Protein backbone atom coordinates (compact mmCIF):
# COMPACT_ATOMS: atom_id res chain seq x y z
CA UNK A 1 0.00 0.00 0.00
CA UNK A 2 2.82 2.35 0.98
CA UNK A 3 4.55 1.60 -2.32
CA UNK A 4 1.42 2.45 -4.31
CA UNK A 5 1.04 5.69 -2.38
CA UNK A 6 4.66 6.57 -3.15
CA UNK A 7 4.16 5.92 -6.86
CA UNK A 8 1.02 8.07 -6.85
CA UNK A 9 2.95 10.89 -5.19
CA UNK A 10 5.77 10.62 -7.74
CA UNK A 11 3.26 10.73 -10.60
CA UNK A 12 1.48 13.74 -9.08
CA UNK A 13 4.78 15.55 -8.57
CA UNK A 14 5.84 14.69 -12.12
CA UNK A 15 2.62 16.08 -13.59
CA UNK A 16 2.92 19.24 -11.47
CA UNK A 17 6.51 19.75 -12.61
CA UNK A 18 5.52 19.21 -16.24
CA UNK A 19 2.69 21.76 -15.94
CA UNK A 20 5.03 24.24 -14.24
CA UNK A 21 7.67 23.78 -16.96
CA UNK A 22 5.06 24.24 -19.69
CA UNK A 23 3.51 27.30 -18.03
CA UNK A 24 6.98 28.75 -17.53
CA UNK A 25 8.01 28.51 -21.17
CA UNK A 26 4.90 28.44 -23.37
CA UNK A 27 4.10 31.26 -25.79
CA UNK A 28 0.36 30.42 -25.62
CA UNK A 29 -1.00 33.93 -25.11
CA UNK A 30 -3.46 33.54 -22.17
CA UNK A 31 -0.90 31.61 -20.10
CA UNK A 32 2.05 33.72 -21.21
CA UNK A 33 0.18 36.95 -20.36
CA UNK A 34 -0.46 35.77 -16.80
CA UNK A 35 3.14 34.66 -16.44
CA UNK A 36 4.44 37.97 -17.80
CA UNK A 37 2.26 39.94 -15.41
CA UNK A 38 3.50 37.89 -12.44
CA UNK A 39 7.10 38.28 -13.63
CA UNK A 40 6.68 42.03 -13.94
CA UNK A 41 5.33 42.33 -10.39
CA UNK A 42 8.12 40.14 -9.00
CA UNK A 43 10.71 42.24 -10.79
CA UNK A 44 9.16 45.43 -9.42
CA UNK A 45 9.33 43.99 -5.90
CA UNK A 46 12.89 42.80 -6.52
CA UNK A 47 13.87 46.29 -7.70
CA UNK A 48 12.39 47.76 -4.52
CA UNK A 49 14.58 45.41 -2.48
CA UNK A 50 17.78 45.23 -4.46
CA UNK A 51 17.67 48.41 -6.55
CA UNK A 52 17.52 48.90 -10.32
CA UNK A 53 19.77 46.26 -11.93
CA UNK A 54 20.16 48.37 -15.07
CA UNK A 55 21.88 51.06 -13.03
CA UNK A 56 24.90 48.72 -12.71
CA UNK A 57 27.54 49.23 -15.39
CA UNK A 58 29.42 46.31 -16.87
CA UNK A 59 31.69 45.87 -19.86
CA UNK A 60 29.56 45.27 -22.94
CA UNK A 61 29.44 41.85 -24.57
CA UNK A 62 28.45 40.64 -28.05
CA UNK A 63 26.04 38.18 -29.58
CA UNK A 64 26.32 36.34 -32.89
CA UNK A 65 24.69 33.54 -34.83
CA UNK A 66 23.31 32.43 -38.17
CA UNK A 67 20.01 33.08 -39.87
CA UNK A 68 18.97 30.15 -42.04
CA UNK A 69 15.86 28.99 -43.84
CA UNK A 70 14.09 25.71 -43.21
CA UNK A 71 16.40 23.98 -45.70
CA UNK A 72 19.46 25.21 -43.84
CA UNK A 73 20.41 27.78 -46.48
CA UNK A 74 21.64 31.18 -45.26
CA UNK A 75 19.15 34.06 -45.32
CA UNK A 76 20.91 37.29 -46.26
CA UNK A 77 19.58 40.72 -45.35
CA UNK A 78 17.35 39.58 -42.48
CA UNK A 79 16.74 42.17 -39.79
CA UNK A 80 17.92 40.72 -36.46
CA UNK A 81 16.94 42.40 -33.22
CA UNK A 82 17.39 41.97 -29.51
CA UNK A 83 15.92 44.19 -26.84
CA UNK A 84 16.84 45.09 -23.29
CA UNK A 85 14.26 44.39 -20.55
CA UNK A 86 13.06 47.98 -20.83
CA UNK A 87 12.79 48.13 -24.62
CA UNK A 88 16.15 49.49 -25.81
CA UNK A 89 16.71 47.77 -29.14
CA UNK A 90 19.89 46.57 -30.86
CA UNK A 91 19.47 45.82 -34.56
CA UNK A 92 21.63 44.46 -37.34
CA UNK A 93 21.31 42.67 -40.70
CA UNK A 94 22.52 39.20 -41.60
CA UNK A 95 25.28 39.13 -44.23
CA UNK A 96 25.48 37.01 -47.40
CA UNK A 97 26.40 33.94 -45.35
CA UNK A 98 23.46 34.47 -42.99
CA UNK A 99 25.83 35.48 -40.19
CA UNK A 100 24.90 38.30 -37.84
CA UNK A 101 26.73 39.95 -34.98
CA UNK A 102 25.50 42.42 -32.40
CA UNK A 103 28.43 44.13 -30.65
CA UNK A 104 28.30 46.40 -27.60
CA UNK A 105 25.38 44.70 -25.88
CA UNK A 106 24.81 45.36 -22.19
CA UNK A 107 25.24 42.02 -20.38
CA UNK A 108 21.96 40.24 -19.79
CA UNK A 109 19.48 37.74 -21.16
CA UNK A 110 18.19 38.14 -24.71
CA UNK A 111 15.89 36.34 -27.11
CA UNK A 112 16.84 37.26 -30.69
CA UNK A 113 14.19 37.71 -33.38
CA UNK A 114 14.53 38.13 -37.14
CA UNK A 115 12.39 39.39 -40.01
CA UNK A 116 12.60 39.10 -43.77
CA UNK A 117 9.84 39.63 -46.31
CA UNK A 118 8.39 36.33 -47.46
CA UNK A 119 9.23 34.63 -44.17
CA UNK A 120 7.37 34.46 -40.89
CA UNK A 121 9.26 36.23 -38.11
CA UNK A 122 11.83 33.91 -36.56
CA UNK A 123 12.49 33.68 -32.84
CA UNK A 124 15.25 31.96 -30.92
CA UNK A 125 14.12 28.65 -29.45
CA UNK A 126 16.01 26.63 -26.85
CA UNK A 127 13.51 25.47 -24.20
CA UNK A 128 16.23 24.04 -21.96
CA UNK A 129 17.77 27.52 -21.76
CA UNK A 130 14.34 29.13 -21.23
CA UNK A 131 14.60 30.35 -24.85
CA UNK A 132 17.19 32.99 -24.01
CA UNK A 133 20.89 33.55 -24.47
CA UNK A 134 23.12 35.08 -21.81
CA UNK A 135 25.56 37.77 -22.87
CA UNK A 136 28.39 38.14 -20.32
CA UNK A 137 30.61 41.21 -19.81
CA UNK A 138 33.47 41.44 -22.26
CA UNK A 139 32.60 38.16 -23.96
CA UNK A 140 30.89 37.10 -27.16
CA UNK A 141 28.04 34.63 -27.03
CA UNK A 142 27.91 32.64 -30.25
CA UNK A 143 25.48 30.15 -31.74
CA UNK A 144 22.28 32.15 -31.27
CA UNK A 145 20.91 30.71 -34.53
CA UNK A 146 17.54 31.53 -36.04
CA UNK A 147 15.51 29.48 -38.52
CA UNK A 148 13.12 31.29 -40.84
CA UNK A 149 10.20 29.47 -42.42
CA UNK A 150 8.18 30.75 -45.34
CA UNK A 151 5.19 32.77 -44.21
CA UNK A 152 1.86 31.02 -44.56
CA UNK A 153 -0.04 33.38 -46.85
CA UNK A 154 -3.09 31.17 -47.27
CA UNK A 155 -6.23 33.25 -47.57
CA UNK A 156 -9.28 31.84 -45.77
CA UNK A 157 -11.51 30.21 -48.36
CA UNK A 158 -15.15 31.25 -48.71
CA UNK A 159 -17.90 29.77 -50.83
CA UNK A 160 -20.43 32.59 -50.94
CA UNK A 161 -20.65 36.37 -50.75
CA UNK A 162 -23.86 37.76 -49.35
CA UNK A 163 -24.59 41.39 -50.25
CA UNK A 164 -27.23 43.45 -48.45
CA UNK A 165 -29.64 45.86 -50.09
CA UNK A 166 -28.31 49.28 -51.07
CA UNK A 167 -29.13 52.12 -48.64
CA UNK A 168 -28.38 55.81 -48.62
CA UNK A 169 -25.69 56.94 -46.20
CA UNK A 170 -25.36 60.61 -45.39
CA UNK A 171 -22.81 62.54 -43.40
CA UNK A 172 -22.95 66.25 -42.63
CA UNK A 173 -19.66 68.03 -41.97
CA UNK A 174 -20.15 71.75 -41.43
CA UNK A 175 -21.65 73.12 -44.63
CA UNK A 176 -20.65 70.03 -46.59
CA UNK A 177 -23.12 67.24 -47.10
CA UNK A 178 -21.63 63.93 -48.19
CA UNK A 179 -23.71 61.16 -49.68
CA UNK A 180 -22.86 57.59 -50.56
CA UNK A 181 -24.55 54.29 -51.28
CA UNK A 182 -24.00 51.69 -48.59
CA UNK A 183 -24.33 47.90 -48.65
CA UNK A 184 -23.37 45.24 -46.19
CA UNK A 185 -21.31 42.27 -47.27
CA UNK A 186 -20.64 38.93 -45.63
CA UNK A 187 -18.17 36.25 -46.70
CA UNK A 188 -19.51 32.79 -45.91
CA UNK A 189 -17.93 29.40 -45.64
CA UNK A 190 -20.42 26.59 -45.06
CA UNK A 191 -22.86 29.28 -43.89
CA UNK A 192 -20.39 30.49 -41.24
CA UNK A 193 -19.35 34.15 -41.49
CA UNK A 194 -15.58 34.51 -42.01
CA UNK A 195 -15.60 38.22 -42.81
CA UNK A 196 -18.04 41.10 -42.94
CA UNK A 197 -18.21 44.82 -43.42
CA UNK A 198 -19.74 47.56 -45.54
CA UNK A 199 -19.17 48.70 -49.10
CA UNK A 200 -19.70 52.41 -49.86
CA UNK A 201 -19.96 53.66 -53.43
CA UNK A 202 -20.45 57.10 -54.97
CA UNK A 203 -24.11 57.87 -55.57
CA UNK A 204 -23.59 59.01 -59.15
CA UNK A 205 -21.28 57.93 -61.98
CA UNK A 206 -20.30 54.56 -63.34
CA UNK A 207 -16.68 54.26 -62.31
CA UNK A 208 -14.50 52.31 -62.22
CA UNK A 209 -13.27 53.99 -59.07
CA UNK A 210 -10.17 53.26 -57.04
CA UNK A 211 -10.80 51.29 -53.90
CA UNK A 212 -10.01 52.12 -50.30
CA UNK A 213 -10.00 49.49 -47.57
CA UNK A 214 -10.79 51.43 -44.41
CA UNK A 215 -10.02 49.67 -41.12
CA UNK A 216 -11.98 51.46 -38.43
CA UNK A 217 -11.35 51.44 -34.67
CA UNK A 218 -15.06 51.03 -33.87
CA UNK A 219 -18.33 49.78 -35.39
CA UNK A 220 -18.57 51.01 -38.96
CA UNK A 221 -21.93 52.78 -38.64
CA UNK A 222 -20.56 54.81 -35.71
CA UNK A 223 -17.56 55.85 -37.82
CA UNK A 224 -19.27 56.89 -41.07
CA UNK A 225 -17.45 60.19 -40.77
CA UNK A 226 -14.63 58.36 -42.58
CA UNK A 227 -16.10 56.16 -45.35
CA UNK A 228 -19.00 58.37 -46.47
CA UNK A 229 -16.96 61.49 -47.39
CA UNK A 230 -14.33 59.30 -49.09
CA UNK A 231 -16.95 57.51 -51.18
CA UNK A 232 -18.57 60.85 -52.01
CA UNK A 233 -15.20 61.96 -53.40
CA UNK A 234 -15.12 59.11 -55.91
CA UNK A 235 -13.81 56.01 -54.19
CA UNK A 236 -15.30 52.60 -53.55
CA UNK A 237 -14.77 52.15 -49.83
CA UNK A 238 -14.71 48.76 -48.12
CA UNK A 239 -15.08 49.52 -44.41
CA UNK A 240 -14.37 46.94 -41.73
CA UNK A 241 -14.19 46.90 -37.97
CA UNK A 242 -11.84 44.27 -36.52
CA UNK A 243 -13.96 43.21 -33.56
CA UNK A 244 -11.74 40.27 -32.52
CA UNK A 245 -9.45 42.76 -30.86
CA UNK A 246 -6.33 40.73 -30.21
CA UNK A 247 -6.44 38.31 -33.16
CA UNK A 248 -4.81 40.75 -35.54
CA UNK A 249 -3.53 38.10 -37.97
CA UNK A 250 -7.00 36.49 -38.13
CA UNK A 251 -8.63 39.83 -38.84
CA UNK A 252 -6.07 40.64 -41.50
CA UNK A 253 -6.77 37.31 -43.21
CA UNK A 254 -10.49 38.18 -43.25
CA UNK A 255 -9.58 41.45 -44.95
CA UNK A 256 -7.44 39.60 -47.47
CA UNK A 257 -10.43 37.40 -48.24
CA UNK A 258 -12.48 40.58 -48.78
CA UNK A 259 -9.82 41.77 -51.24
CA UNK A 260 -10.16 38.48 -53.13
CA UNK A 261 -13.91 39.06 -53.35
CA UNK A 262 -13.28 42.65 -54.43
CA UNK A 263 -10.88 41.62 -57.18
CA UNK A 264 -13.41 39.09 -58.41
CA UNK A 265 -15.98 41.88 -58.68
CA UNK A 266 -18.30 40.41 -56.05
CA UNK A 267 -18.29 43.33 -53.63
CA UNK A 268 -18.71 46.04 -56.24
CA UNK A 269 -18.96 45.99 -60.01
CA UNK A 270 -17.71 49.55 -60.12
CA UNK A 271 -14.46 49.16 -58.18
CA UNK A 272 -11.07 49.22 -59.87
CA UNK A 273 -9.27 46.51 -57.92
CA UNK A 274 -5.92 47.34 -59.51
CA UNK A 275 -5.84 50.62 -57.57
CA UNK A 276 -6.19 49.86 -53.89
CA UNK A 277 -5.37 52.01 -50.89
CA UNK A 278 -5.59 51.12 -47.20
CA UNK A 279 -6.43 53.44 -44.35
CA UNK A 280 -6.34 52.88 -40.61
CA UNK A 281 -5.25 54.48 -37.40
CA UNK A 282 -4.41 54.03 -33.74
CA UNK A 283 -4.86 50.34 -32.86
CA UNK A 284 -5.87 49.44 -36.41
CA UNK A 285 -2.54 50.77 -37.68
CA UNK A 286 -1.30 47.34 -36.57
CA UNK A 287 -3.78 45.76 -38.99
CA UNK A 288 -2.75 48.10 -41.79
CA UNK A 289 0.95 47.35 -41.44
CA UNK A 290 0.34 43.63 -41.02
CA UNK A 291 -1.81 43.63 -44.14
CA UNK A 292 0.90 45.43 -46.11
CA UNK A 293 3.42 42.80 -45.04
CA UNK A 294 1.17 39.95 -46.13
CA UNK A 295 -0.49 41.33 -49.23
CA UNK A 296 0.95 42.48 -52.54
CA UNK A 297 -0.98 44.75 -54.87
CA UNK A 298 -1.75 47.57 -52.44
CA UNK A 299 -0.71 50.87 -53.97
CA UNK A 300 -0.69 53.22 -51.00
CA UNK A 301 -1.56 53.36 -47.31
CA UNK A 302 -2.48 56.08 -44.87
CA UNK A 303 -2.14 55.78 -41.11
CA UNK A 304 -3.46 58.21 -38.52
CA UNK A 305 -1.89 58.17 -35.05
CA UNK A 306 -0.26 54.80 -35.70
CA UNK A 307 2.11 52.61 -33.74
CA UNK A 308 5.43 52.04 -35.51
CA UNK A 309 7.69 50.65 -32.80
CA UNK A 310 6.31 48.69 -29.86
CA UNK A 311 9.71 48.56 -28.20
CA UNK A 312 9.83 52.36 -28.06
CA UNK A 313 6.35 52.43 -26.52
CA UNK A 314 7.59 50.00 -23.87
CA UNK A 315 10.68 52.17 -23.28
CA UNK A 316 8.55 55.24 -22.72
CA UNK A 317 6.22 53.27 -20.45
CA UNK A 318 9.19 52.08 -18.38
CA UNK A 319 10.72 55.52 -17.96
CA UNK A 320 7.34 57.06 -17.15
CA UNK A 321 7.08 59.41 -20.13
CA UNK A 322 4.07 57.51 -21.47
CA UNK A 323 1.13 56.41 -19.36
CA UNK A 324 -1.05 54.28 -21.62
CA UNK A 325 -4.77 54.92 -21.25
CA UNK A 326 -7.72 52.50 -21.30
CA UNK A 327 -5.84 49.77 -19.42
CA UNK A 328 -3.29 49.46 -22.21
CA UNK A 329 -0.55 49.41 -19.58
CA UNK A 330 -1.89 46.00 -18.51
CA UNK A 331 -1.70 44.82 -22.12
CA UNK A 332 1.91 46.04 -22.35
CA UNK A 333 2.82 44.22 -19.14
CA UNK A 334 1.01 41.11 -20.37
CA UNK A 335 3.09 41.17 -23.56
CA UNK A 336 6.10 40.43 -21.41
CA UNK A 337 9.56 41.86 -20.94
CA UNK A 338 10.89 42.68 -24.40
CA UNK A 339 14.24 41.00 -23.81
CA UNK A 340 12.67 37.61 -23.07
CA UNK A 341 9.37 37.90 -24.99
CA UNK A 342 10.08 40.23 -27.93
CA UNK A 343 7.92 38.44 -30.51
CA UNK A 344 4.72 40.51 -30.31
CA UNK A 345 6.56 43.82 -29.95
CA UNK A 346 8.58 42.85 -33.02
CA UNK A 347 5.71 41.42 -35.06
CA UNK A 348 3.74 44.63 -34.81
CA UNK A 349 6.63 47.08 -35.17
CA UNK A 350 6.56 48.14 -38.80
CA UNK A 351 9.83 49.96 -38.21
CA UNK A 352 11.58 46.59 -38.51
CA UNK A 353 9.43 45.29 -41.39
CA UNK A 354 9.90 47.94 -44.05
CA UNK A 355 10.59 45.77 -47.09
CA UNK A 356 7.97 46.04 -49.80
CA UNK A 357 5.89 48.79 -48.20
CA UNK A 358 3.95 50.99 -50.64
CA UNK A 359 3.98 54.80 -50.34
CA UNK A 360 2.84 55.77 -46.85
CA UNK A 361 1.08 58.82 -45.52
CA UNK A 362 1.59 59.28 -41.78
CA UNK A 363 -0.65 61.71 -39.92
CA UNK A 364 -0.12 62.31 -36.22
CA UNK A 365 -1.38 64.90 -33.79
CA UNK A 366 1.26 66.64 -31.73
CA UNK A 367 -1.13 66.52 -28.75
CA UNK A 368 -1.65 62.76 -29.01
CA UNK A 369 -1.26 61.52 -25.45
CA UNK A 370 -2.10 57.93 -26.27
CA UNK A 371 0.30 57.10 -29.11
CA UNK A 372 3.14 59.65 -29.07
CA UNK A 373 3.76 61.42 -32.37
CA UNK A 374 7.40 60.35 -32.05
CA UNK A 375 6.15 56.97 -33.37
CA UNK A 376 5.32 58.44 -36.77
CA UNK A 377 8.50 60.53 -36.73
CA UNK A 378 10.57 57.40 -36.09
CA UNK A 379 8.96 55.58 -38.99
CA UNK A 380 9.32 58.59 -41.27
CA UNK A 381 13.02 58.73 -40.37
CA UNK A 382 13.50 55.09 -41.33
CA UNK A 383 11.61 55.51 -44.60
CA UNK A 384 13.62 58.61 -45.47
CA UNK A 385 16.89 56.80 -44.73
CA UNK A 386 15.90 54.09 -47.23
CA UNK A 387 14.62 56.51 -49.85
CA UNK A 388 11.11 55.06 -49.62
CA UNK A 389 8.17 57.33 -50.55
CA UNK A 390 6.23 58.77 -47.63
CA UNK A 391 4.50 61.87 -46.34
CA UNK A 392 4.54 62.93 -42.70
CA UNK A 393 1.89 65.35 -41.44
CA UNK A 394 2.25 66.43 -37.83
CA UNK A 395 -0.95 68.27 -37.00
CA UNK A 396 -0.42 70.85 -34.24
CA UNK A 397 -2.83 70.46 -31.34
CA UNK A 398 -4.50 67.33 -32.71
CA UNK A 399 -5.18 64.75 -29.99
CA UNK A 400 -5.61 61.02 -30.47
CA UNK A 401 -9.32 61.26 -31.17
CA UNK A 402 -10.14 63.94 -33.71
CA UNK A 403 -13.17 66.16 -33.44
CA UNK A 404 -15.39 67.73 -36.07
CA UNK A 405 -13.25 70.78 -36.70
CA UNK A 406 -10.23 68.65 -37.59
CA UNK A 407 -12.16 66.35 -39.90
CA UNK A 408 -11.99 68.73 -42.86
CA UNK A 409 -8.21 69.04 -42.61
CA UNK A 410 -7.73 65.28 -42.27
CA UNK A 411 -10.05 64.61 -45.19
CA UNK A 412 -8.11 67.05 -47.34
CA UNK A 413 -4.76 65.41 -46.52
CA UNK A 414 -6.27 61.97 -47.17
CA UNK A 415 -7.78 62.98 -50.49
CA UNK A 416 -4.58 64.68 -51.68
CA UNK A 417 -2.54 61.59 -50.83
CA UNK A 418 -4.79 59.02 -52.45
CA UNK A 419 -5.42 61.23 -55.48
CA UNK A 420 -1.66 61.25 -55.99
CA UNK A 421 -1.19 57.48 -55.82
CA UNK A 422 -4.52 56.00 -56.94
CA UNK A 423 -5.82 58.27 -59.71
Amino acid sequence: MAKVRRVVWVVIMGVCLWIAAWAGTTDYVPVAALRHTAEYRLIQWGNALWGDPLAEHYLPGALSGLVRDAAGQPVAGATVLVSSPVGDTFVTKSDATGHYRLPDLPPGFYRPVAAHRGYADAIYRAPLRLNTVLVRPGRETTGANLTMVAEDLTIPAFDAVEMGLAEEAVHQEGDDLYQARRRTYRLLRSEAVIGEGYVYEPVTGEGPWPTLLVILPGPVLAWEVVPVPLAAQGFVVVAVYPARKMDIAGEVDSMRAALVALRAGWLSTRADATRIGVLGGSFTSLHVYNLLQREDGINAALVLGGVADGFRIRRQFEDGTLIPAHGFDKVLIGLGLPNRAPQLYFRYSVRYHLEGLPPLCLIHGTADGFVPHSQSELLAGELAARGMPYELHLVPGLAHYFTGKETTLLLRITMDFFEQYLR
Partner: protein
Amino acid sequence: MSEKVQKDYHRWLRRLGWVILLLAASFWTLFTGAEMVSGLVSGEAASLRGGLLEFAVFAAPLWLGAILVWRWPPVGVAWLLLDGVALVVLFGVRALTFYVPPAGLAMTALTLVLPPLAAGVLFLVDWRRGRIH
Protein backbone atom coordinates in the same frame (compact mmCIF):
# COMPACT_ATOMS: atom_id res chain seq x y z
CA MET B 1 21.51 2.58 14.95
CA SER B 2 21.45 2.64 18.73
CA GLU B 3 18.99 4.86 20.56
CA LYS B 4 21.78 7.06 21.89
CA VAL B 5 23.32 7.61 18.46
CA GLN B 6 19.89 8.44 17.10
CA LYS B 7 19.26 10.95 19.87
CA ASP B 8 22.64 12.56 19.26
CA TYR B 9 21.92 12.66 15.56
CA HIS B 10 18.60 14.42 16.18
CA ARG B 11 20.17 16.84 18.61
CA TRP B 12 22.83 17.81 16.06
CA LEU B 13 20.29 18.25 13.28
CA ARG B 14 18.27 20.54 15.51
CA ARG B 15 21.32 22.47 16.69
CA LEU B 16 22.59 22.96 13.15
CA GLY B 17 19.15 24.13 12.08
CA TRP B 18 18.98 26.63 14.94
CA VAL B 19 22.51 27.91 14.26
CA ILE B 20 21.79 28.50 10.57
CA LEU B 21 18.42 30.10 11.28
CA LEU B 22 19.56 32.37 14.09
CA LEU B 23 22.76 33.36 12.30
CA ALA B 24 20.86 34.36 9.18
CA ALA B 25 18.15 36.17 11.17
CA SER B 26 20.76 38.05 13.21
CA PHE B 27 22.81 38.93 10.15
CA TRP B 28 19.81 40.41 8.34
CA THR B 29 18.55 42.16 11.46
CA LEU B 30 21.94 43.77 11.97
CA PHE B 31 22.32 44.64 8.31
CA THR B 32 18.86 46.13 7.86
CA GLY B 33 18.96 47.74 11.31
CA ALA B 34 22.17 49.52 10.37
CA GLU B 35 20.53 50.78 7.20
CA MET B 36 17.53 52.06 9.17
CA VAL B 37 19.74 53.78 11.75
CA SER B 38 21.76 55.34 8.94
CA GLY B 39 18.51 56.56 7.39
CA LEU B 40 17.36 58.02 10.72
CA VAL B 41 20.67 59.75 11.40
CA SER B 42 21.10 61.18 7.92
CA GLY B 43 17.41 61.98 7.54
CA GLU B 44 17.25 60.02 4.29
CA ALA B 45 13.73 58.70 4.11
CA ALA B 46 14.62 56.35 1.24
CA SER B 47 17.28 54.61 3.32
CA LEU B 48 14.89 54.22 6.24
CA ARG B 49 12.16 52.89 3.97
CA GLY B 50 14.60 50.51 2.26
CA GLY B 51 15.83 49.20 5.60
CA LEU B 52 12.29 48.64 6.83
CA LEU B 53 11.31 46.84 3.64
CA GLU B 54 14.41 44.64 3.72
CA PHE B 55 13.78 43.85 7.39
CA ALA B 56 10.20 42.89 6.58
CA VAL B 57 11.23 40.60 3.69
CA PHE B 58 14.61 39.22 4.76
CA ALA B 59 14.78 39.22 8.58
CA ALA B 60 11.24 39.17 9.97
CA PRO B 61 10.19 35.90 8.24
CA LEU B 62 13.25 34.19 9.74
CA TRP B 63 12.38 35.36 13.26
CA LEU B 64 8.78 34.33 12.74
CA GLY B 65 10.04 30.96 11.46
CA ALA B 66 12.16 30.56 14.60
CA ILE B 67 9.15 31.21 16.85
CA LEU B 68 6.99 28.82 14.84
CA VAL B 69 9.61 26.04 14.87
CA TRP B 70 9.99 26.48 18.63
CA ARG B 71 6.25 26.36 19.36
CA TRP B 72 4.78 24.32 16.47
CA PRO B 73 7.56 22.50 14.57
CA PRO B 74 5.54 21.35 11.51
CA VAL B 75 4.12 24.86 10.96
CA GLY B 76 7.57 26.36 11.39
CA VAL B 77 9.11 23.91 8.93
CA ALA B 78 6.44 24.67 6.35
CA TRP B 79 6.92 28.42 6.90
CA LEU B 80 10.71 28.26 6.45
CA LEU B 81 10.46 26.13 3.31
CA LEU B 82 7.85 28.46 1.84
CA ASP B 83 10.00 31.47 2.70
CA GLY B 84 12.95 29.85 0.93
CA VAL B 85 10.92 28.98 -2.15
CA ALA B 86 9.42 32.48 -2.30
CA LEU B 87 12.93 34.00 -2.17
CA VAL B 88 14.12 31.59 -4.88
CA VAL B 89 11.26 32.74 -7.12
CA LEU B 90 11.73 36.44 -6.29
CA PHE B 91 15.46 36.40 -6.91
CA GLY B 92 15.28 33.78 -9.68
CA VAL B 93 13.05 35.91 -11.90
CA ARG B 94 15.46 38.79 -11.48
CA ALA B 95 18.52 36.63 -12.12
CA LEU B 96 16.95 35.19 -15.28
CA THR B 97 16.05 38.62 -16.62
CA PHE B 98 19.03 40.83 -15.79
CA TYR B 99 22.70 40.10 -15.65
CA VAL B 100 23.78 39.32 -12.07
CA PRO B 101 27.51 38.68 -11.60
CA PRO B 102 28.45 35.21 -10.27
CA ALA B 103 29.64 36.72 -6.97
CA GLY B 104 26.25 38.40 -6.51
CA LEU B 105 24.47 35.13 -7.25
CA ALA B 106 26.61 33.25 -4.75
CA MET B 107 26.22 35.86 -2.02
CA THR B 108 22.46 36.01 -2.42
CA ALA B 109 22.17 32.24 -2.44
CA LEU B 110 24.34 31.84 0.65
CA THR B 111 22.92 34.62 2.77
CA LEU B 112 19.31 34.82 1.67
CA VAL B 113 17.95 31.75 -0.07
CA LEU B 114 19.85 28.87 1.51
CA PRO B 115 19.38 29.62 5.25
CA PRO B 116 15.58 29.19 5.40
CA LEU B 117 15.72 26.23 3.01
CA ALA B 118 18.58 24.50 4.84
CA ALA B 119 17.13 25.16 8.30
CA GLY B 120 13.69 24.06 7.08
CA VAL B 121 15.05 20.79 5.69
CA LEU B 122 17.06 20.06 8.85
CA PHE B 123 14.05 20.71 11.10
CA LEU B 124 11.88 18.66 8.76
CA VAL B 125 14.19 15.64 8.95
CA ASP B 126 14.47 16.01 12.72
CA TRP B 127 10.72 16.39 13.18
CA ARG B 128 9.79 13.49 10.88
CA ARG B 129 12.28 11.04 12.41
CA GLY B 130 11.33 12.16 15.90
CA ARG B 131 7.68 11.55 15.07
CA ILE B 132 8.27 8.15 13.46
CA HIS B 133 10.60 6.62 16.06
